[in-house]
């Protein structure tokens, strides 16, 4: 797998490798976090979420890790496939339903 610095706009990985996309969130009061995938010409698609009382959550081929101490969120994608090529956004919410605050996104590129 490949770990990238925070806010890197592009991550290039080999097909079959693991991908790690990082995100720094801004508000220590945020208690809900979501990762979205956005393909060209489409709206953001929900991937996985995590609440602040957890530090890890797993889905199908994806894992989200939350480190509240340093306000850091990461998305791990196992065995990256060509269909994973997209822009990935993290988003945070401070409780309630008053909207999400989005990061600027990371473009994941899959090399054959």
């Amino acid at each position, binding site marked *: 797998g490949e770990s990238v610095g925070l806010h890197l706009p592009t991550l290039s990985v080999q097909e079959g490798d693991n991908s790690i996309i990082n995100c720094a969130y801004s508000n220590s009061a945020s208690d809900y976090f979501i990762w979205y995938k956005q393909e060209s010409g489409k709206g953001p698609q929900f991937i996985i979420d995590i609440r602040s009382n957890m530090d890890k959550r797993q889905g199908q081929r994806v894992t989200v890790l939350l480190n509240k101490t340093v306000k850091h969120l990461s998305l791990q994608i196992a065995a990256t496939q060509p269909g994973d090529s997209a822009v990935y956004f993290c988003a945070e919410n401070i409780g309630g339903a008053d*909207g999400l605050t989005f990061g600027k996104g990371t473009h994941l590129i899959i090399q054959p």
Partner: protein
Amino acid sequence: DAGITQSPRHKVTETGTPVTLRCHQTENHRYMYWYRQDPGHGLRLIHYSYGVKDTDKGEVSDGYSVSRSKTEDFLLTLESATSSQTSVYFCAISRGGADNQPQHFGDGTRLSIL
């Protein structure tokens, strides 16, 4: 897909004209949102609604108004469009409630103000 339809999908108009974008949902979700997406800014919240006739402002609400007269429809209006409002606009819906629920997005409206 989350049962969200945005219309129109594309629109080109002139500065100073009024523009209304529509978001229609078939999920009966209580919460609806309008975001805009611009290069270098990610998605930013314009307005949101937490029920019929209940709306509130988001981060970038200046120059926009919204209305929600029924559960399934949430309208975004630019009273007098400006070139700075050229953007891609996304609608999202959520069950909301005390236990956070994810927002699900439509496929957007690409709006160009000339």
